[in-house]
């Protein structure tokens, strides 16, 4: 019985420790989301260009910079709804501005949907007349929360 009591107290102490030390700041931060969405958007734009039959561009040529903020007032980190504003270079080197609504889950995965229709609808037509999915209309990605 005494051993059981010690075991119970030990388990309670361990649980308290987990709760106390586990209640740190959320790993879902604007820095992590921006670092994830910038290369993902650039890589998708690179693939999209080739699917559309346009002259190829390297992912780095899109020079994407993102600025993300959480929509919940008064909090700067955590899962939920986020808004990211992207500034990037288009195929003619013009500077473009786009916004995405993000749903970020606690495991570090997100779904980004274009907030405006500047990037077209869900489907685009390639140069040879094929319908291709608009990769930049809505996309998903994951980042490390460690």
């Amino acid at each position, binding site marked *: 019985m005494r051993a059981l009591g010690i075991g119970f107290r030990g388990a309670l102490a361990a649980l308290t420790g*987990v*709760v106390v030390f*586990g209640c740190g700041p959320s*790993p879902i931060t604007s820095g992590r989301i921006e670092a994830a969405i910038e290369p993902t958007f650039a890589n998708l734009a690179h693939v999209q260009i080739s699917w559309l039959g346009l002259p190829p561009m390297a992912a780095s040529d899109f020079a994407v910079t993102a600025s993300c903020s959480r929509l919940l007032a008064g909090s700067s980190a955590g899962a939920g709804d986020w808004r990211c504003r992207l500034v990037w270079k288009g195929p003619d080197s013009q500077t473009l501005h786009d916004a995405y609504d993000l749903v970020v889950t606690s*495991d570090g*995965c997100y779904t980004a949907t274009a907030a405006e229709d500047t990037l077209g609808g869900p489907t685009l037509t390639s140069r040879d007349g094929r319908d291709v*999915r608009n990769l930049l209309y809505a996309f998903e990605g994951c980042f*490390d929360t460690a």
Partner: protein
Amino acid sequence: MSVPGSLAVTRVECAKLAAQLKTHLVLAACVISPFAFAAAMRVQSSLPEDTLFGRCVKESGFAVPLVVLGFAALWVFPALSSVVGGDLFSAEDRYGTWTTLLTRSRCRSEVFAGKVLTAMGFSALTVAALAASSVAAGVLIVGPQPLVDLSGTLLPSAQALNRIALAWASVLPPALAFTALAVLLSVATRSSAAGIGLPVVAGLTMQLYAFVDGPELIRRLLITSAFGAWHGLLAEPPFYGPLISGMAVSTAYLLVCLLIAYGMLRRRDISR
């Protein structure tokens, strides 16, 4: 306890399993379901956009095993992992066969090890069957086109297949941890309903935590987090942190559950 003794029990348990309709139905479902899913995706216009890779399930057959993997993590893996593990011990209670079993030439530790090996083997078999069938369904019904990964990079077919194989292999540790939990519940409650049902309920409850933006450490300490650790394998560059912590957590659950279950079985008064 001897290894040949444990293996002898495993052979008997496997023969008993092979004779059960349940075993055949579960394995058949693992093989058929992905083909039904891929065929449905091919003919219908809507896509499972709320699951990772759901958007590209018509573009690349390699998205099919990943959508199945994401969906199965919700409750299918806990159910498949406990359908045998949650019943192997309690079935002896149900049929009143413990006294017969333990008067044979095998000691309790050998019976325990043999039954656990059988349960673990069956869980691994269901995961392997679901994985192989999902890949085959995707490639045969949709096609082996390159896959856009979670960093927007286009993965060539061979590379996509490698990553998918690794992703499916990564769910084995948490699946086996659920089997160990089912074994523990089967031994503790002596009820197959509890042995099979409670791990599924536990799995769903742990999944619910993902919707609550709670402390990260607690999320990582849940077995179900390891079911999503494969996301890092489909990113560029891949990240392995969740995979390592998921394996460590799964191993801890597995060892603790089996140790407690063995302790309970060893101390049990079989004569009652």
